[in-house]
């Protein structure tokens, strides 16, 4: 009996110390982590809503849907378009992209936020080809109508990456799906 109490006491002491140390670390790193995530999102927004003023991008949020509005001026003047986040499962991971469209549904900019596709093949959706200044998604999607996107293998105009048709198709279809969802929401409003 005494033994059980002693062992339990030691375990308790150690877990309490560990928990205290962790909560300390957590409170220090939490703002840092959120800051890093915020920066990442801001960088994506400036790509997706190219042309908007960096401080003229507003988050529109309600219970079921989140999107962003981009203006050329800080004070909500000159709406240039909207950005939304969309995702679809590719070859080996969820491919999450931030897509910016203008009011007519033409894609302004696009950025892959996260993916874990096959290195050297699927990952090329987010990479710049040798000597290019734009990533594959930017090159393929910018200036196209979001609704009509389809990869070449499905009869569309998006040139899929050799050896990575599945990843290319997933991005393409997720852009279309994401736009549909966004459009539904905005017309309902």
């Amino acid at each position, binding site marked *: 009996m005494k033994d059980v109490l002693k062992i339990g006491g030691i375990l308790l002491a*150690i*877990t309490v110390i560990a928990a205290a140390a962790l909560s300390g*670390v957590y409170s220090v790193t939490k*703002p840092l982590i959120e800051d890093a995530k915020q920066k990442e999102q801001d960088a994506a927004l400036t790509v997706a809503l190219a042309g908007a003023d960096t401080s003229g991008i507003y988050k529109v949020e309600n219970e079921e849907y989140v999107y962003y509005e981009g203006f050329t001026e800080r004070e909500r003047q000159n709406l240039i378009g909207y950005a939304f986040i969309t995702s679809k499962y590719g070859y080996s991971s969820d491919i999450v992209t931030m897509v910016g469209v203008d009011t007519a549904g033409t894609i302004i900019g696009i950025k892959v936020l996260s993916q874990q596709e096959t290195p050297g093949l699927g990952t090329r959706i987010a990479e710049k080809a040798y000597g290019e200044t734009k990533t594959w998604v930017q090159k393929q999607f910018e200036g196209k109508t979001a609704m009509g996107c389809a990869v070449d293998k499905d009869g569309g105009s998006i040139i899929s990456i050799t050896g990575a048709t599945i990843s290319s198709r997933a991005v393409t279809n997720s852009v279309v799906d994401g736009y549909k969802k966004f459009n539904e929401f905005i017309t309902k409003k």
Partner: protein
Amino acid sequence: MSAFKELTKGIYDQNPVFKQALGLCPTLAVSNSVENGLGMGLAATFVLVCSNVIISLIRKLVPAKIRIPVYIVVIASFVTIVDYSMNGLFHELHKSLGLFIPLIVVNCIILGRAEAFAGKNNIFLSLLDGIGMGLGFTLALVLLGTIREILGNGSFLGIPVIGASFKPVLIMILPPGAFLSIGFVMGFFNWIENRKSN
């Protein structure tokens, strides 16, 4: 002399990856580039050094019956600290190392050193052991990462080192490349040992 030996044994003589074949899971998974290997190696070294010191410190207080849960709590705490700090300070690296950071908890090198060394030796020697083993693990990851990144991507630390006409051997940065390179490097070290003993 003995202290020096505890520090250096992990680098070659008892290298955790190539000689003890410990911690192969993270070795195979994150050695696809030098940066990932270095990040993972240093993160594991930090956890290993800290857990070795703490475990050596409390080794006389902990009854043998509950030593494993206690070790795991200590290790898991340090892993969580690394996980949070890396996420805040090196966000990109944290994204590419992904779920392998939390998995340091079950890295056999760390529990293995706790059980085999830190639970029986004093703080100073455990510290040296942790540094040595951690360095050995880091060096192994960087070596494999170098081989795989140069062959599989034509670059070192992300900087292209081979001309553009080189077509990278993609398989080397895919999972099979990890098995291939670890097999050949291990075989190479065994060959050296064989020649020494003959």
